[in-house]
């Protein structure tokens, strides 16, 4: 579904992503792991064309490497950014409606009502402004908004960041449900959460892939995990 070949990202003199390659099957799920500053978010931003990069990106066989950000989104590679980025002056419902823009004429797994079913706590908050949401509520809106764009691949950056354990659980459950039919890339620092959601994982360090395998294998290689993931 998604194929990434030798992705490179530079920020001025910082070489943030160094030759990252991976492939993601249809309905597959991949966890991107790594310490703070390892380049996880930069990979996602490069894929959605928010930052300039070199390398090749194919989505469902189509080369999307040179498309501008809005076309990438419309092609179905949907990025749920770090920090949720809910629009503060739009209501919850309007935020979800924004998600529909990316869909175009592609058929979608989720309609608005399905999102409310997936995240029942959002239903009473339909009219609440984005700036008045708690972290967990905002994350639900962000994920729901992504789903409404009919993702072929959805990339979620740090869904558990700053959430209470209970909220993390809710969001993780939802993502597991989603992963049954939608390809997912999940960036996480929380190993347990990431490996529960995703079947495969790659570990980044200083912009390079240092470990890849099934989630269980990655989680199993204790010493590797502790040395790579502790900051």
């Amino acid at each position, binding site marked *: 579904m998604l194929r990434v070949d030798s992705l490179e990202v530079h920020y001025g003199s910082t070489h943030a992503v160094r030759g990252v390659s991976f492939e993601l099957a249809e309905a597959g799920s991949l966890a991107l792991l790594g310490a703070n500053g390892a380049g996880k978010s930069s990979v996602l931003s490069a894929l959605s064309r928010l930052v300039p990069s070199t390398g090749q990106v194919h989505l469902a066989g189509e080369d999307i490497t040179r498309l501008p*950000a809005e076309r990438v989104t419309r092609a179905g590679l949907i*990025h749920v950014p770090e920090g949720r*980025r809910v629009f503060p*002056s*739009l209501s919850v419902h309007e935020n979800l409606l*924004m998600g529909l*823009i990316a869909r175009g004429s592609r058929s979608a797994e989720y309609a608005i009502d399905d999102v409310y079913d997936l995240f029942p706590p959002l239903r009473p908050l339909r009219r609440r402004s984005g700036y008045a949401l708690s972290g967990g509520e905002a994350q639900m809106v962000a994920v729901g908004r992504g789903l409404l764009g009919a993702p072929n691949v959805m990339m979620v950056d740090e869904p558990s960041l700053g959430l209470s354990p209970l909220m993390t659980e809710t969001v993780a459950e939802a993502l597991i449900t989603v992963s049954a039919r939608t390809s997912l890339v999940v960036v996480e620092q929380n190993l347990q959460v990431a490996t529960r959601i995703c079947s495969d994982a790659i570990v980044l360090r200083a912009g390079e892939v240092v470990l890849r395998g099934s989630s269980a294998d990655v989680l199993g290689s204790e010493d590797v995990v502790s040395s790579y993931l502790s900051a």
Partner: protein
Amino acid sequence: MDKFIALTASGIAYGAVLTLVALGFLVLYNATGIVNFANGDLVTLGAYVGIWTTVDLGLPTIPSFLVTLALMAVVGLVLEALAYEPLRNQPALVAVMGTLAAAIILRGVIGIWQGSTPRALPSPVGDAVVHIGGAPIAGHRILIVVVSGIAVCLVGLLFTRTSFGRQLRALADDPTTTRLMGVRVRAAARISFVASAVLAGLGGLLIAPIGAVDLTFGFNLMITAFAAAILGGFGSLRGVVIASFVIGLLQALVGGYFLVGYSSVLGAVLLLAVLAVRPSGLFSMERSRL
């Protein structure tokens, strides 16, 4: 009492036109993050095109308004392509200077086309006078209020009820994330340039019959509209409408009774006062620093 009613009426009419022009800023600012210094000259252009279509070409009112607004839309597109698009990735102030350059070009072109002698645009309602509470009110002022009222309501609906309006508000909140939603940012910029040019043109058409039209006609209106936009918080529709009427009334009443020589700059005074005391506007929550 008569004087009071007459002044109030002229204040309301002026406030209505201010609302139109200020809304032009607002739409554009929301979509692009820049303030368009050419807006004042767009107002002037609207007035001159109106004079051209009605006086020189002799078109009836409605067609002449429509032709004017259509031409303004085209000018908005050209402006976007020449003065904004090349500067889109520059710091905001550079883009603003681009609109300033566009303003000079626009004024130069109008000057070449129309010369510097002031001209007049007759009102579509002629010299009709309506009596309210015994005071005679020019029919044109009522026309101004009605037409701008309709335009403001349309813009309000556009903002709150349409997908485009949502995209505008999202762009104002967070342009990067808005692109991640698949919004075509260039298209949004174009549409808002068109909308703001049309609003400016309409403002020009409406206010022109009240005085004479010359090359600096729109510029003064623009400064006052800036005051209204800032006072209203540069983000909220309601804030801008309220601020425009406050300024319009203040200018008419204070200027009519006390500071007679200064009535035309009360907007400027108010603007300075607001900038000194509350640069973020009176009605706004915390917004991005301009």
